[in-house]
């Protein structure tokens, strides 16, 4: 589908028609916190935001979700699966870094042992990405990991703000279906517009991630991790705000005769995450846990799933870490270490 445009005023109308047919989810502000949540009308949305605090990953892999309810009637036990969604959804305003994270999470949840809850939410959701404003936030570094803030890749529709209109690139059938829903509101671009209605190029500092994985893997025994983990407090913020983290815990709430099995987010940074009942812990101190987190992102995830690095440069962990452990600093330190190419 070729590029179209929509006026800023018509955008609201389009989203309202969508809200009539789908569950519309978009960025809203609540007590200073930007979050993605269901809205009845486009008026509740906000457009002044860089990104949400809790990533839209929470809409596919929620902080807490019920897997099934169990009830004991006499001798029998009945299990009742929980339906993940009541209605098809449209997510408006997702940034490209989060779109990129979803494709990474797909590799985890939709492998041969497919997670049906995640899969259903992914299938019944249409993504309307919103290109990041320029200049990008100074903390963002998504281009380092091949994320292009202006590309529709991975989403169904990309809207790009070029002054008084939005450029509309629908790249999938689901995207086209949505555009068809508001057919009167879109207009094709004239030749002239095609040329000058271009978003300004994104200039963002690039981190050097050449051979990051190989240099990292050489540091398994290095005492760098000891020093890096000193300010780390072992709280769970970096993993809970990270769009590519997918660790979770499963626990039963209720009694042996009546209750629910929940899945909820968990963090590899918690001291008892891998603690075994025998008392042994493969990652007993913060040093091992910090090392494990960066190895997962830059070594084990790419080698296991054959993808790029499991980081999309959204900088959420950077901004919110109370101890000031900065992933960009770690990347710089590792790439400063002697790599294969400079030997």
């Amino acid at each position: 589908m070729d590029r179209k445009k929509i006026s800023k005023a018509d955008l609201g109308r389009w989203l309202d028609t969508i809200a009539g047919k789908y569950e519309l989810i978009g960025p809203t502000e609540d007590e200073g916190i930007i979050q993605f949540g269901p809205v009845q009308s486009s008026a509740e949305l906000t457009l002044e935001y860089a990104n949400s605090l809790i990533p839209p990953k929470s809409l596919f892999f929620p902080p807490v979700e019920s897997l099934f309810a169990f009830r004991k009637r006499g001798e029998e036990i009945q299990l009742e699966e929980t339906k993940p969604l009541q209605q098809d959804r449209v997510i408006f305003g997702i940034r490209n870094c989060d779109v990129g994270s979803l494709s990474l999470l797909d590799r985890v949840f939709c492998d041969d042992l497919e997670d049906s809850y995640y899969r259903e939410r992914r299938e019944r959701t249409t993504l309307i990405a919103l290109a990041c404003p320029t200049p990008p936030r100074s903390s963002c570094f998504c281009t380092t990991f091949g994320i292009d803030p202006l590309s529709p890749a991975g989403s169904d529709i990309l809207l790009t703000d070029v002054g008084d209109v939005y450029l509309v690139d629908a790249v999938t059938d689901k995207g086209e279906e949505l555009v068809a829903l508001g057919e009167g509101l879109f207009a094709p671009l004239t030749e002239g517009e095609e040329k000058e209605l271009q978003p300004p190029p994104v200039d963002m500092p690039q981190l050097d991630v050449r051979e990051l994985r190989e240099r990292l893997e050489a540091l398994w025994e290095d005492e760098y991790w000891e020093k890096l983990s000193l300010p780390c407090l072992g709280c769970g913020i970096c993993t809970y705000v990270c769009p590519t983290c997918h660790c979770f815990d499963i626990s039963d709430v209720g009694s042996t005769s009546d209750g629910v099995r929940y899945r909820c987010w968990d963090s590899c940074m918690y001291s008892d995450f891998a603690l075994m009942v025998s008392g042994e812990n493969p990652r007993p101190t913060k040093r091992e846990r910090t090392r494990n987190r960066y190895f997962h992102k830059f070594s084990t995830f790419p080698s296991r799933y054959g993808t790029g690095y499991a980081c999309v440069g959204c900088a959420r962990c950077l901004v919110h870490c109370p101890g000031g452990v900065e992933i960009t600093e770690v990347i710089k330190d590792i790439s400063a270490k002697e790599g294969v190419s400079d030997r």
Partner: protein
Amino acid sequence: MTANIYLPSIATVREVRPETPDTSTYVVSFDDPQLRESFAYEPGQFAELSIFGVGECPIGIASSPTREGLLEFCVRAVGTVTDALHDLEVGDKLGVRGPLGNSWPTTEIEGKDLLFIGGGIGLPPLRSLIQYVLDNRDRYGAVQIVYGARSPQDLVYKEELKEWEDLPDVDFHVTVDAGDDTWDGAVGFVPPFLKDINPSPTNKVAFTCGPPIMIKLVVEALEEMGYADADIITTLEMKMKCGVGKCGRCNIGDKYICRDGPVFSFEELRSIPGALEV
């Protein structure tokens, strides 16, 4: 596996056999007859057992697929879920989710001589392979079994051990760390006991499972005897939760023990940094 990888199937406890003061064997079978037939698993795989309202925990399937119908789990009461398992009586219901993980390399070791070294409650995962080998005896070479436990009543499958001892084509050895007046067999830890037996490494694959400290010493002993890393195979015991390679707990290197294991050869383990520290 049902479409929903987290949904257990309901099974009933058919038989409870106390093995040691804190370990019992639970024989279960699925309520759904259709599932009872279709539930195909390989020796060495495990399943997640659910006590609803308490939780789930991964337990190795101790029976062999060659013996139909019933699944056997050998459970020691160490944690909240295993404690709850120990409160089950015949006829009680529980959840079973699986089969999960990889399995012993039953085809690659065809024609080879086999050496099984088990320690305490490490025997059940080996037993599923031993039964499989005994039920397909002609596909495999000589069978040697070396098993040890802390004390005579800590030995599991006491009757079956006697059966194996009487089998003509099985070289069976058993020891206990500390004997008592009811015990007339060998006394001593498994690693030195194994060194005295000194089984030759030619055309042989060794399978070992038991407490980490025993595995470490057994592997050293085997290497002294000339066994190649590729021919020493074990099953790792790590903290597992989802059992389907997603919850991020049981990773060593880029492998998830619940998906790429729990069965590994020592050659694989040597290549993964930090795998052997555990």
